[in-house]
């Protein structure tokens, strides 16, 4: 693959970095990244990966754009109110960089469809807003051996971790089971500072770029906690648990679990 004159200009600030170069930029252009959620986190992740020239971006979300989203979900606008978030995001990303192929999927991610959805992608990014999805995505990535960059936000606090199945911890090594419904509130219930997903999403996008380029250190066996009120970043050491039910030596979870059934029943 040769760069066009336009691509050389577009990616010039990347190409002059010795850690990226023309070779790295070509890796980015041929990479495939799947983003779960086109909300607070999915928007900045997709936006920056599009700008960076990540060749194929799949994005799934089942919601439509609402006015209350616009305080933080930067890929949407007053012009896309009421239309599917993935469609709105696709328009925004395509306007930024026509090099990138955006695969927009308006659907709910389930234990039935997740394997087919992610299997052809190199890296998965979780920007979902609920625990059932977070555990489903973790388990599917562990089973397929896919790198996963997981992010979460609430109020003024965000977390990021990078899961490399077979090499480091997984989300269940950190928190074995989802909390019981109601214990941890959602952003809808508890609020979230609008800029917070921007910070956390940008960190997730950075992890993805490093994974594609094979440069630097990622948050393997670590959880990064960002507190926007204190302006503090803290890294917590995490360990792969040999007794982990999904990535341990004798896993007990061999099929995907849909926790959302229980969640809906209790609410």
């Amino acid at each position, binding site marked *: 693959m040769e760069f066009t004159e336009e691509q050389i200009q577009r990616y010039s600030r990347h190409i002059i970095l010795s850690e990226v170069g023309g070779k790295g930029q070509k890796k980015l252009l041929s990479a495939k990244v799947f983003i779960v959620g086109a909300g607070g986190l999915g928007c900045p992740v997709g936006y920056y990966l599009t700008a960076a020239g990540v060749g194929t971006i799949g994005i799934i979300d089942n919601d439509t754009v609402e006015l209350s989203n616009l305080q933080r979900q930067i890929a949407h606008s007053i012009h896309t109110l009421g239309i599917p978030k993935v469609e709105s995001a696709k328009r925004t990303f395509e306007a930024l960089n026509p090099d990138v192929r955006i695969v927009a999927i308006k659907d709910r991610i389930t234990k039935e469809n997740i394997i087919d959805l992610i299997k052809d992608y190199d890296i998965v990014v979780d920007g979902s807003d609920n625990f059932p999805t977070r555990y489903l995505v973790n388990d599917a990535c562990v089973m397929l051996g896919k790198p996963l960059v997981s992010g979460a936000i609430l109020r003024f606090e965000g977390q990021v971790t990078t899961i490399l199945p077979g090499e480091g911890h997984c989300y269940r090594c950190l928190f074995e089971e989802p909390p019981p419904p109601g214990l941890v509130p959602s952003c809808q219930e508890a609020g979230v500072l609008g800029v917070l997903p921007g910070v956390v999403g940008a960190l997730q996008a950075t992890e993805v770029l490093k994974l594609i380029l094979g440069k630097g250190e990622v948050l393997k066996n670590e959880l990064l906690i960002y507190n926007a009120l204190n302006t503090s970043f803290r890294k917590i*050491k995490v360990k792969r648990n040999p007794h982990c039910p999904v990535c341990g030596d004798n896993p007990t979870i061999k099929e995907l679990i849909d926790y959302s059934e229980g969640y809906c029943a209790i609410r």
Partner: protein
Amino acid sequence: MPSDKILIPEDIIREMIRHSREVYPEEACGILAGNADVVKGIYRMTNIEHSTVSYLMDSREQFRVMKDIREKGLEMIGIYHSHTFSEAYPSQKDINLAFYDVAYLIVSLATSEPVIKAYRILDQREVREMEILTARV
């Protein structure tokens, strides 16, 4: 290098406080299990001294708990106890008897709102406060 941070899920923080209040004015004591910097389980222990100013765990109970922790693939990463009338800082006795390379947590009930702090105690001498993170978002 010993870590200067510990992540404790909120339900475990609440359980430490609940335990401390239940045995008040005696000191409560217990063990926190986990991996690396992350706490995953809590074990209430019996304070066989039944004292308002000190604690001693029952050694048989302690062995049973250690076995259970190992079987879960975890390690003892913290020891907590409560202070009934004093602040959340290790007493001289706490410092002298700090044999383990774990986080020492103290729940103080001396004020109307309970206060929890965590410390590393190096060489049974040097006390370093750790940061407690409670996040689960």
